[in-house]
């Protein structure tokens, strides 16, 4: 490509950008858009009229160009002879070489010569006979090492000389290395892979650290015998049932040929360390409790059984209340069961309650303060009752609230009798609670009545001055915003124009002109989706307005979709039959569809309606020229 052509193209690009900027600066906004459209149309007309529309024919060089693109990246040169990928040596061939089990290591290849090898290669085992051609040594041309001795190379020999690859970790890989006789024997066994059978004594080959399947356990000498697979957990002490659940067929990877053989998997769990799984264990753990706690817990269990018996027995009609369990709770609270933890009771220090009978108040059930007090619904509701705590417990309960602040003069009422509950009756002064009923005295009632008689002062409502809600800019301010937007567009600041029109639409969402103007700005940016959105908004707001239809037609025209553009102009002309610009645009669209007669008619109508349409005479002249042809 010539440099001059590139310079011409650069010059033209710069000039076009400069002209568009100048047009935006010196022309009003609608004219700027019009200039862009008309200039593109004019350029196309110039090229077509001069016969340069498609001056470069398709001469079939595209394929060559594509090839050239490839060859430019990779210059053509003689490709080196492809070296076949080294196929894995067949096991039988390896086994046919005597001493193959003593294959040297990679470091031993330095001084190895084929003539000095321990054994000779048997000709009948060689698939490819040796040739006199230059063997493929795998080196680039010109870099082959000079042979010190004449080496008769064959694929088998090369395979024997190839460094022994690292054995794969996957024991299912059928390629293995070891005693060839043993390998052949194992291959005869059928579907059992070599890796499964060979790696029995080497625990390092196992990829799954969770289990070890020893080869001794794979005692399958014949069909019909049971296979005992022992899975020993050696690495992870937590892998008990949880780990077992992860095992599947792929983990075991044992393919037993005989279907009649029964397999048995024995899971040996030797480590039973506490792993926190006792969360669901409702029974107490002997190892975790002290003897005292154990006794208390046993007593609690006895209490639970007794209470269950009472609840289900003949006294079931009585309130399901028991205070018997509270005895065993004092002075030391039993450990809470692990199953769940109830919210703490509201009355602190409740260790035991002397209650029962019809009143039916239970506190500290099972000796556990976590179990809340239950009151029977059928029992009469006590009036103004309070819990009186004895001196021994008052100190403990002093931080708990109002229970410790009771007066000594208050009458103490016992609710029920503890005799109904047998052995766990209340004993001792300091080991329980008693319920007191406190009634209001006359003085207190009078005080309450006095409080009721107090009349509340009527507050006079303050007069709050009402402030008008700011409902946005006024019409004058909106008009000023529109002028600002138009000025910004006239100055070429399209973004500011879009922002101003957006401000106008924020305040006046029904402004059709703002929608159309902003949509045309989007169209000028090439943002067809936003432009179409604005035009459709405007059309929805004012279906009788032809401007949105014309704008949509311009959008289709810009996308060179002339058929749809003509449809839109037709719709606009239905609304406004004397719209000169709609005729002009439709005429230009017809022109590009090569319907020159219709184009000339529309352009003539447009000129009759408005002779000031820019370039209308030029368009008419072009159409006439085409019609004459």
């Amino acid at each position, binding site marked *: 490509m010539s440099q001059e052509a590139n310079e*011409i193209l650069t010059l033209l690009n710069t000039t076009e950008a400069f002209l568009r900027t*100048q047009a935006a600066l010196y022309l009003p906004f609608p004219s700027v858009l019009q200039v862009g459209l008309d200039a593109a149309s004019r*350029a196309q007309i*110039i090229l077509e009229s001069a016969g340069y529309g498609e*001056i470069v024919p398709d001469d079939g*060089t595209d394929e060559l160009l594509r090839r050239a693109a490839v060859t430019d990246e990779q210059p053509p040169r003689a490709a080196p002879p492809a070296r076949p990928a080294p196929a894995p040596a067949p096991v039988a061939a390896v086994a046919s070489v005597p001493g193959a089990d003593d294959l040297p290591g990679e470091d031993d290849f330095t001084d190895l010569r084929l003539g000095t090898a321990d054994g000779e290669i048997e000709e009948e085992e060689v698939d490819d006979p040796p040739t006199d051609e230059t063997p493929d040594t795998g080196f680039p041309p010109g870099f082959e090492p000079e042979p010190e001795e004449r080496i008769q190379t064959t694929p088998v020999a090369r395979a024997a000389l190839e460094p022994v690859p690292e054995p794969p970790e996957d024991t299912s890989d059928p390629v293995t290395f070891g005693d060839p006789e043993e390998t052949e024997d194992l291959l005869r066994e059928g579907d059992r892979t070599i890796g499964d059978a060979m790696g029995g004594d080497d625990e390092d080959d196992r990829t799954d650290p969770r289990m070890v399947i020893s080869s001794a356990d794979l005692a399958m000498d014949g069909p019909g015998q049971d296979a005992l697979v022992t899975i020993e957990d050696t690495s992870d002490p937590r892998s008990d049932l949880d780990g077992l659940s992860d095992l599947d067929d792929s983990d075991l990877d044992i393919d037993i040929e005989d279907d009649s053989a029964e397999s048995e998997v024995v899971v040996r769990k030797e480590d039973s360390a506490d792993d926190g799984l006792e969360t669901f264990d409702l029974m107490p753990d002997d190892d975790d409790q002290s003897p005292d706690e154990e006794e208390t817990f046993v007593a609690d269990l006895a209490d639970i059984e007794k209470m269950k018996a009472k609840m289900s027995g003949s006294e079931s009609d009585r309130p399901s209340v028991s205070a018997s369990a509270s005895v065993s709770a004092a002075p030391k609270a039993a450990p809470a069961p692990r199953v769940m933890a109830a919210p703490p009771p509201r009355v602190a220090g409740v260790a035991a309650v002397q209650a029962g009978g019809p009143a039916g108040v239970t506190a500290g059930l099972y000796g556990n303060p976590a179990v809340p007090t239950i009151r029977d619904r059928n029992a009469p509701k006590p009036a103004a009752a309070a819990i009186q705590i004895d001196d021994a417990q008052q100190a403990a309960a002093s931080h708990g609230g109002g229970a410790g602040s009771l007066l000594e003069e208050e009458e103490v009422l016992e609710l029920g009798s503890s005799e109904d509950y047998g052995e766990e009756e209340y004993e001792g002064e300091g080991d329980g609670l008693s319920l007191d009923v406190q009634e209001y005295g006359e003085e207190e009632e009078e005080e309450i009545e006095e409080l009721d008689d107090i009349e509340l002062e009527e507050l006079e409502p303050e007069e709050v001055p009402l402030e008008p809600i700011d409902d946005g800019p006024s019409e004058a301010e909106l008009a000023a915003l529109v002028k600002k937007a138009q000025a910004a567009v006239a100055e070429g600041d399209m973004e500011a124009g879009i922002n101003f029109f957006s401000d106008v639409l924020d305040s006046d969402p029904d402004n059709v002109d703002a929608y159309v103007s902003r949509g045309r700005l989007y169209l000028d940016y090439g943002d067809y989706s936003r432009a179409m959105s604005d035009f459709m908004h405007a059309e929805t707001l004012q279906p009788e307005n032809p401007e949105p239809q014309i704008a949509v037609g311009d959008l289709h025209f810009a996308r060179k979709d002339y058929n749809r553009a003509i449809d839109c102009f037709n719709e606009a002309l239905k609304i406004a039959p004397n719209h000169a610009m709609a005729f002009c645009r439709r005429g230009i669209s017809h022109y590009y569809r090569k319907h020159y007669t219709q184009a000339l008619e529309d352009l003539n109508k447009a000129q009759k309606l408005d002779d000031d349409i820019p370039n209308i005479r030029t368009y008419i002249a072009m159409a006439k020229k085409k019609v004459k042809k």
Partner: protein
Amino acid sequence: MADPDLRSLRDRLRQNLETSVAALTEEANESDFVAILGSVIALRQLAVQLQDVDHRAEVLHRSVAHADGAAASALTSRLDELAATRSKLVDALQTLTREVAR
């Protein structure tokens, strides 16, 4: 590869564009903008086509060097066609360059 025709065309085009743009900015007229902008757009399209033709010719020249027999003759005939096309394009560019000056 220097092309004297294109070089003179480039110089003339630059001069004409400067003159036209200077006259345009003094009296901003929409039709003048349309006329000169349309010409510039058309010129640019022709220049793009000229670049394309030059690129094709360059590739064909390289291909001819590696071809022989019938393939080489076919490629040579294509090169001739491209040369004719290029001549047309240069003529069109010169014509439009003169139009810009008016």
